[in-house]
């Protein structure tokens, strides 16, 4: 009889992608208020393909958390940033058949760490890129220009509308304040002109 249920035990015995990722492009951490567990996810990202090329994790948490991080880091490899950012926790939990309700948090925590890593990548890119061609949404590779064009063409008023129109903001959500700024600037300029 194994300590954890079969598929969880399998990943505890041989976790995929556990450890330090040398030369990571982005790192994100999440910590549970419920149980105090910590998980850190590091990513290597191909900037031209906008794709995750490698992922590793480190964690201080139960075997369920290790198994979830193991499955998640496998799942995001070779995923486009946008798809990685919109990965649902089901993608993790389905693999195990079912997790006990109190361990569903483990999967959610891993997803939170992934989002934090994507947000980390986002802020690093923002520092590098300047001018109109700055990528606002790094998850879906949407530039400030594209967002402004969409706002202008369809008279968009909210971040949600922007996301529905051009995907921007549909991933890790770290660019939502920036999209709001763009909306504000656009409509302020419009009302000043009229």
């Amino acid at each position: 009889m194994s300590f954890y249920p079969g598929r969880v035990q399998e990943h505890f015995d041989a976790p995929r992608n556990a450890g330090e990722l040398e030369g990571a492009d982005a790192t994100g951490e999440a910590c549970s208020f419920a149980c105090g567990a910590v998980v850190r996810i590091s990513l290597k990202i191909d900037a031209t393909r906008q794709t995750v090329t490698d992922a590793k994790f480190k964690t201080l948490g139960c075997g369920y958390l290790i198994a979830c991080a193991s499955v998640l880091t496998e799942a995001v490899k070779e995923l486009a940033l946008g798809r990685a950012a919109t990965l649902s926790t089901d993608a993790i939990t389905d693999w195990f058949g079912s997790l006990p309700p109190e361990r569903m948090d483990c999967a959610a925590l891993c997803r939170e760490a992934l989002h934090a890593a994507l947000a980390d990548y986002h802020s690093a890119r923002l520092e590098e890129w300047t001018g109109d061609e700055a990528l606002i949404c790094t998850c879906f590779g949407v530039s400030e220009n594209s967002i402004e064009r969409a706002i202008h063409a369809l008279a968009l008023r909210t971040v949600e509308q922007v996301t529905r129109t051009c995907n921007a903001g549909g991933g890790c959500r770290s660019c939502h304040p920036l999209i709001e700024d763009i909306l504000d600037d656009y409509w302020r300029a419009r009302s000043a002109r009229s």
Partner: protein
Amino acid sequence: MREQIVYLDNNATTRVAPEVFDAMRPYLEDLYGNPSSAHTFGREMRRSVESAREQVAQILGAGDASEIVFTSCGSESDNWAIRGVLELVPGKRHIVTTRVEHEAVRNFCERLEKNGYEVTWLEVDEDGGLDLEALGAALRPDTALVSAMLANNETGVLFPIEEIGRIVRDNSDALFHVDGVQAVGKIPISLRDANVDLFAISGHKFHAPKGIGALYVRKGLSLAPFIVGGGQEGGRRAGTESLPYIVGLGRACELARVDGDAEALRVRALRDRLEDTILASIPNARLNGAGDRARRLPNTSNISFEYVEGENILASLDAAGVCVSTGSACNAETHEASAVLRAMNVPYTAARGSIRFSLGRYNTESEIEYTLAILPGIIERLAQWSPYDEASGKRQV
């Protein structure tokens, strides 16, 4: 079930001693009489109950066998002691206890607190030791009860119950209850010399079966029964006596009385070997509880492997056939780290990685060597996964 396990979880429960099993067996077969029956068969059973009572009284150093009342478990004993005292002095609504008591006392006192009683929770220091000055200051004219454990189940830290008893007697009219569950069979106890009014014990912690306990009730103290019904146990605890288990408890006490001291020495040597080697050789290992071993049970080592998850250690040891327990939040039903370690101000990263090794009568040197052989590799493997950089660092000097 595994063929062979290395059982280092003797504070959770112990194996029933073969001697105890042999003593009990006739009472599960031919000697099935009811000790309360008037016929000769029944009266013979009564004699067995009374002889077990003598055996329990002896191991506790009680003045009189009539001070022992059989119960179903340690929790019943603890609950009865507390409730019994409060019923005895209904006008007094203040209780003094500690932050590190077993749940049978802690959770019961928390419930009383919700029901209008006032509870003073005494703090412990980083070694798990009690602040005796704070105890003196906490006592009031309306203090009904002081409840403190003799040996802590998680750390093995001992409270000086004779000194506590003296302080309680000299400064108040409060009664003094001791949860002695983890101490019996491991260290000598002499209640006749201590100012202890009530003392709870549990059989399965020292090689009797689960389902039998006792409460020492100092002579002259008349507690109302917790379980009400027939007149068994002199009207103090209703319910037909569980004769096989009572006989088993008595035999376990006898076993501890005969070679308990020698066993404690042997177990202490094994424990010391385990503890010394781990602390000296595994990076980031730290002891929880008094470094002074005279202030701890001879069988218990609570060690934190800082920056590593205790549940992972437990699972890895489990796979290798070694049984231990952890204070990690992950493993607790409540998802909270051990209240005992929190009360001792153990850093969060260390409380998570805490492992309790509790040895017993049937552990051997080769089992300890086996555990010591596999443990460093387990910790090293898990440390590689730790998000804390300190985990891979060298041991701090």
